[in-house]
């Protein structure tokens, strides 16, 4: 364990009766980082967060906070404040009382309590609502109260369980930058659980991707986006075209290629360590996949048929189908699309340079 580790999960398992929510977690959270734990519902991400908060006890393994095991520490003896999905603000207290609550529980004196609460109300720009009831606030204001309430004790770590999921899209984006700035300015470690890729990737320094109680990959958003480690991650992100096949020596006599049901593709693997004949998965980002009317020379190409298009802001997604019915997608700017002059049902070639392909060994 390195010096900049704040939290470590060591062989942590959590089961509820026969249901195993978390299979076996081994990972570390660094001091001062913004870590997102991401996955679809039921993947164990919330259970992981709740174990860290002390709201669930691990069935096996050890969780350490600053090196000390905290398994047997009840939640009220830990300093792991959490922001709930429902925010869990106290409706019978006003905004100021909500923010002062944690300080009151620590026996902080009245004047000091008020001063520190005032600071955070000001920082979160909710001073003018201090005397209001929670029910009189908008979603975004409540969000800020919840953050102020958790941060007023100036913790080392803040746990967030999908706190933005109830907000509308525009407010969500605004709160994302509030959160990110807050994390940067305070240096507090944020652990942020979400099912939303855009939230995780826009805010986090590192992302943990979980599936069925296991960690699929940990890395920076760029790493995960460009080089997914498992087939699950590639499928989950949905930003790559995925091909499965077997590795073999290149047909030109040099290099390595992968043989799939829609063709053989050259791989950019100068130092290949994967045994030939092994099955593997090739992923190509949809932004790196090109389209043309004729087969391009010297690139990996797949004959496809265009089946649809979808416009989202500045880019469009073109939906394609290979000869064996596999779906492919391509992201293109409007300018480029206009030049290609596409229509649905057209036969095309989807292609990419071999260095844009990414190999996942042992699919």
């Amino acid at each position, binding site marked *: 364990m390195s010096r900049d580790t704040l939290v470590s999960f060591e062989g942590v398992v959590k089961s509820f009766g026969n249901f195993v929510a978390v299979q076996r977690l081994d990972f570390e959270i660094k001091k001062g980082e913004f870590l997102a734990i991401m996955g679809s519902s039921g993947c164990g991400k919330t259970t992981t967060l709740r174990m860290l908060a002390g709201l669930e006890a691990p069935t096996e393994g050890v969780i350490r906070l600053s090196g000390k095991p905290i398994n047997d520490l009840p939640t009220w003896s830990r300093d792991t404040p*959490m922001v709930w999905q*429902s925010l869990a603000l106290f409706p019978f207290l006003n905004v100021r009382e909500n923010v002062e609550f944690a300080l009151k*529980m620590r026996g902080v004196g009245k004047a000091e309590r008020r001063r520190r609460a005032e600071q955070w109300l000001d920082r979160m720009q909710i001073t003018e609502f201090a005397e209001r009831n929670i029910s009189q606030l908008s979603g975004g204001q409540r969000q800020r109260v919840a953050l102020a309430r958790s941060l007023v004790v100036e913790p080392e770590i803040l746990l967030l369980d999908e706190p933005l999921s109830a907000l509308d899209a525009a407010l969500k984006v605004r709160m994302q930058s509030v959160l990110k700035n807050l994390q940067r300015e305070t240096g507090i470690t944020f652990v942020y659980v979400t099912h939303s890729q855009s939230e995780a990737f826009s805010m986090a320094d590192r992302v943990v991707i979980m599936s069925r109680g296991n960690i699929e990959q940990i890395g920076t958003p760029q790493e995960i986006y460009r080089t997914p480690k498992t087939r699950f991650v590639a499928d989950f992100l949905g930003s790559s075209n995925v091909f499965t096949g077997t590795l073999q020596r290149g047909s030109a006599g040099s290099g390595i290629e992968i043989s799939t049901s829609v063709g053989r593709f050259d791989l950019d693997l100068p130092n290949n360590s994967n045994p030939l004949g092994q099955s593997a998965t090739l992923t190509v980002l949809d932004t790196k996949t090109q389209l043309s009317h004729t087969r391009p020379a010297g690139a990996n190409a797949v004959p496809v048929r265009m089946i649809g298009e979808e416009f989202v802001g500045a880019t469009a997604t073109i939906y394609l189908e290979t000869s064996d019915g596999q779906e492919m997608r391509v992201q293109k700017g409007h300018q480029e699309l206009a030049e290609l002059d596409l229509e649905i049902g057209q036969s095309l070639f989807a292609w990419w340079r071999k260095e844009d392909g990414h190999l996942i060994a042992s699919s």
Partner: protein
Amino acid sequence: MRRPISLYGLTFSLPLLIWQVLFFVFPLVFLVALSFWTVKNFVMRPDFDTVNWTTMYGRTVFWQAYGTTLALAAAASVLTSVLAFPAAYAVAFKLSDTSRRWAVFLMVIPFFTSYLVRVYSWQTFLSDNGIINVILSWIGLGPFVMLNTVGATMIGYLTLSFPLVVLLQLFSLVFIDRTLIEAAHNMRCGRLRTVFEVVIPSARTGLVIAALFCFILSFGDFVSPVYLGGGEPTTLSILITDTTKSGQQWPRAAVIALTMIGTLMVVAFVAVKFAYKGKSK
């Protein structure tokens, strides 16, 4: 949003409305009128004389009974609420869903028997040679005087309202958002402190309404103060019967009854106001 009452809606509320007018508003109006009648030679005469009001309000015995009744009902509300809360809390938070259903079912059972029957059975427990004193005598204790005491009256009030108060408290406790409790724990609020800081404020409406029910039931109760308390000290309900028995003084009894109704209305209004304080904004 307030909407005008439609004819359709009125069709369903009309029977209740008629019932209320016939058996609440009409007797109440009659009671008010009765309180101004006069009694001469044991015969009541319709009249408009404030003599009943001035006589009753001028009597120490009336104000003593009033104070006693108010104090007893208030004590019963507090005592019942305090005793019922741990039970309701345990059923709401510590039992499984199946056990909770059984607990609710068991708490309904006391209502199967008449309150009067339950009070009589308390007599066999509390009397000087009753069950409790017999058992105590086996270990050389007693006998203790338990029947015809204020304590016995209080037991009667508990018998009357305890199951109801537990149920009302329970229904307000089960609807508490559990994440609020977790959030309190997460902010260094221990178990017991959470009960006072979060659980009770969250369930305030239900807890106050439950106590109010206990107050209303105890305030007007006649059975317990007579059959368990032995009629001492005199409560307003006892005073009403005494007044009607002594010289056909129904108008004076009406004064007592109206005072009781007025008191209950004020108490209920204040309690409901307090129960919903800070809500519905």
